[in-house]
């Protein structure tokens, strides 16, 4: 008797957590600006949670939220907050998130333990989509995620993902899937001319990739610690 047009389900998403000793708006701003300068595109409108475990005095959340807005980040909420801080954060319109590690108060941990384990057993894989060619010398890393490239990966470029890698153009550079060690991950590409393909640490250089799939579409996976090429379709 369930109604499928409306559902409210739980999911796990990777969020960036900000650890900052000094939570004054000015300090947060300078620190964030420095970080953003290193990789502006990577953090653009990224959802962020502030860890307030080590905070004794309630920070000015509204001022901090304003800083996030200016820097085009999305402040989702706080984590590790004491009951008092939770109220302050709530008043500023922020969510209070549960820390998944054992740092949460002891009695709560017991109740949550089973739930947390279940969640880890079935992680939700994010997908990072890049809508351009990856040029020689560029490196793209999809941490904890699948990687989709709507373009060509040039010779001397590297695409790396903890998940699968899909390349809709030609793969001329290096593709490293299952970078976190998952041997079930695969590389899919529209045209195979790769310098190197690696899955969970096992790799092939272009010499070993010559053959019936060279210059054609292919799917590369790992079977019994050996890379296996197969038709894409």
């Amino acid at each position, binding site marked *: 008797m369930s109604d499928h047009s409306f559902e409210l389900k739980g999911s796990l998403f990777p969020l960036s957590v900000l650890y900052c000793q000094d939570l004054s708006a000015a300090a947060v701003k300078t620190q964030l600006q420095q970080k953003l300068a290193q990789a502006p595109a990577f953090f653009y409108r990224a959802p962020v949670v502030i860890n307030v475990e080590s905070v004794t005095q309630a920070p000015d959340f509204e001022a901090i939220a304003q800083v996030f807005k200016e820097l085009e980040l999305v402040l989702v909420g706080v984590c590790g907050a004491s009951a008092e801080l939770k109220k302050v954060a709530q008043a500023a319109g922020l969510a209070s998130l549960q820390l998944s590690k054992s740092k949460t108060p002891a009695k709560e941990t017991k109740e949550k333990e089973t739930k947390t384990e279940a969640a880890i057993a079935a992680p939700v894989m994010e997908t990072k989509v890049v809508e351009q060619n990856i*040029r*020689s*010398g560029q490196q793209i890393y999809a941490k904890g995620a699948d990687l989709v490239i709507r*373009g060509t990966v*040039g010779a001397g470029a590297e695409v790396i993902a903890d998940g699968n890698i899909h390349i809709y153009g030609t793969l001329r550079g290096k593709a490293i899937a299952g970078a976190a060690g998952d041997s079930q991950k695969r590389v899919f590409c529209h045209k195979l001319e790769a310098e190197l393909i690696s899955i969970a640490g096992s790799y092939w250089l272009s010499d070993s990739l010559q053959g019936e799939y060279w210059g054609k579409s292919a799917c590369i996976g790992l079977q019994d610690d050996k890379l296996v090429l197969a038709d894409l379709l």
Partner: protein
Amino acid sequence: MAKIIVVTSGKGGVGKTTSSAAIGTGIAMRGFKTVIIDFDIGLRNLDLIMGCERRVVYDFVNVINGEANLKQAMIKDKRIDTLFILPASQTRDKDALSKEGVERILNELAEEFDYIICDSPAGIESGAMMALYFADEAVVVTNPEVSSVRDSDRILGMLSSKSRRAEQGLPGIKEHLLLTRYNPERVVKGEMLSVEDVGEILAIKLLGVIPESQAVLNASNSGQPVILDQDSDAGQAYLDTVARLLGEEVPFRFLNVEKKGLLKRIFGG
């Protein structure tokens, strides 16, 4: 508002300065007020190609340091009224350029000029980054051989990640491919990459193909931009290139091996 066009390549010796001089001259010939800036601090060449090496008094670095103003440093071309050259300093190195200084001068030039052509140094270090940082469009000069193509690919990556437009999230730099030193005979023999090969690898729009030509060397030696030698194949190819850069549709020429006529076969071509 002036349009800033960087002529770049990554690799050295592929024809950046020759192309900057030809394209800048070509645009100025159309009546647009144009300045060509030599960003190759310490390895100044543009003045030679433009034939104004004896008229250099102040240079780009002098202007950045406030030792001279733009009017004093810019050299007005003797052939075309609307063309100016801002030479590089020969006695300094690339660290003499600061982002703030370059920006200030480009802003000042933008008030007066329609087109600003930045002749980039080779490499991917600060000098080349400075030349491309403020660009609206980029002409990527490539020779039809693998190392040049790879370096161009690298520069294209820089254009899409290290430029002002990329850092400020503005629409990206418009990228054009200019293939130089193209020799159809050697392409047929398999000694050179074809237009199609390069186009497929770099995946950007083809702006022009300049045939390998004695006219280019002659032009450099005599300090005349090759585009002024309108009887030559290279000069004509640059004219086509400029037309395309200004948005006109022009068919590509000089892509195929020319059939030698009877007289040429007898007397040699």
